[in-house]
């Protein structure tokens, strides 16, 4: 499959006016996003996600490296006919109605009438904005309605590639689920989505591949399946004997041991042999195994683990 986005060594440094302090917002980032996939771009606040997107769109300029979008150099005006961007927490022109706003954006694509009105209507219907709100000023829109109009403006040109920066943040559960489903549905229309989000449950649900970026550096990239592979098993054991020297023996097998009360321990491991060794040890010490729960790893766990590891806080 062809690459929708191909990034090679993209770097963005900011220096202060005296050229003394240097901040590396994006550090030698290289990655590929394939056509037709929903790609999750994950990172903490200030990790460099938005900076990367802004470089790809030509809003800011890289210090080093380059990228192609749909086969054309980043920032190219022609390629902008085929892409869309929903920035994080955008304020639209408040005095305009939802319809007029989309009409304005459609004009920026030189879409003539009556096609323009048809596109506006389609986009508004697609994001399920209630028709009575179409001709109302955006000033009176709720957060959810603003996000819907934001996605609608990104759909006005029927783009091949969408950059969505936190499209579902700060929404109520219903609006959140609806907008997530709208984003997920874009894949079935053959669109590529570059999704920057902190909603890791959403990312796990709708993305095929993700990249984890931290302090401007790419830490991991892969399919969701690859990243969350490997089960963790949580064993809860009980017994008065456990504390008398047994705790140290258990910790030697599984470092992750938590005390739950005076005679109960919780152990977690992703190694089945270690799990078996724990069970044998507890049984040998006349301890009681309360539960053995296989626990599938989540993307959130992988993300936290990856970032903490990088920070050497594990």
């Amino acid at each position, binding site marked *: 499959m062809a690459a929708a986005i191909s990034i090679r060594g993209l770097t963005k440094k900011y220096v202060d006016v005296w050229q003394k302090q240097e901040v590396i917002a994006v550090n030698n980032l290289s990655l590929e996003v394939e056509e037709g996939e929903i790609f999750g771009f994950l990172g903490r606040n200030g990790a460099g996600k938005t900076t990367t997107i802004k470089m790809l*769109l030509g809003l800011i300029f890289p210090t080093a490296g380059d990228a192609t979008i749909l086969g054309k150099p980043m920032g190219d005006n022609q390629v902008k006919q085929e892409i869309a961007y929903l920035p994080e927490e955008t304020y639209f022109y408040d005095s305009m109605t939802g319809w007029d706003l989309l009409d304005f954006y459609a004009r920026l694509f*030189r879409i003539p009438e009556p096609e323009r009105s048809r596109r506006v209507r389609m986009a508004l219907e697609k994001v399920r904005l209630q028709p009575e709100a179409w001709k109302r000023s955006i000033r009176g829109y709720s957060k959810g309605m603003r996000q819907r109009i934001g996605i609608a403006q990104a759909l006005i040109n029927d783009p091949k590639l969408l950059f969505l920066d936190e499209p579902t943040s700060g929404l109520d559960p219903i609006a959140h689920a609806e907008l997530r489903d709208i984003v997920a549905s874009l894949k079935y229309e053959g669109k590529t989505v570059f999704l920057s989000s902190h909603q890791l449950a959403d990312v796990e649900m709708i993305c095929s591949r993700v990249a984890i970026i931290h302090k401007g550096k790419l830490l991991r990239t892969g399919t969701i399946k690859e990243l969350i592979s490997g089960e963790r098993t949580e064993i809860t054991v009980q017994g008065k004997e456990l504390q008398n020297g047994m705790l140290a023996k258990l910790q030697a097998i599984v470092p992750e041991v938590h005390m739950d009360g005076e005679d109960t321990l919780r152990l977690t491991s992703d190694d089945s042999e270690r799990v078996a060794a724990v069970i044998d040890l507890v049984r040998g010490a006349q301890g009681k195994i309360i539960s053995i729960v296989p626990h599938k790893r989540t993307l959130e766990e992988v993300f936290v683990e990856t970032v903490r590891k990088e920070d050497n806080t594990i």
Partner: protein
Amino acid sequence: MIALAIAQQTIKEAFRRRVMWIFLIIGVFLISLGPVFGFLTPRDSQTVLRSLGLAAILLAGLFVTIVTCIYLIPAEIERRTIYTVLSKPVQRYEFVLGKFLGGFATVFINIAAMGVVFLAMIYFQERRIPAEMFKGVMLTFFQMMLLAALTIFFSTFTTPVVNFFLSFGIFMIGNLTTVTESLTTKSNPLVRGVGTLVHYLLPNFGNFNIQNSIIRPQIEIANEQVFLRNNILYAIIYSSVLLVLAILIFDRREV
């Protein structure tokens, strides 16, 4: 077409700002007070109405122009609306051109609105509208157009506060053409150099002030047509240069 769409959007945004309306209303209010002042002062009521009207248009126009234009580009960046515009197939020059056109149109509408009220007052008092009144309003528009261009130019690389003082300051200096001109002939080379730079580099706003000849018919402008044509051309050319510079700066600006 794209620049026109942005210009239309700019006009709509400008007119929803209350501060612009406040200055416009103050301007119209001052103009409509002309006949009242005419009765209250010992001067000729015709002179009072003409001078007050033109001064009110100039003053209100000055503030409307500055408060409208200093925010045109910074507000787009601050509210991040520029992201959704520049991520579409919009060239940066089209964006800046659209802002210029929108800014000029907003200033024109304001000056025209005050001009209509002013001319109506003149007609109410004199039962005729002398051609000089049109010329006065027209030159004020071109003066404000030049100021708008200057303000939008500064807005591509400064903050609104800095821009306010820069634009206002240059407008004041640009109105003191006789002073700056006198500096160009001083014997001190430093004073002469700075004077020459200021006099020829900064826009000459003083040339647009023809209130004296309008208010007092005995003062005549020699070769009036050439004077008007040259001033209008000066405003258009200077504004165009500022537009080109603004585009060059904005093209390299990160948003």
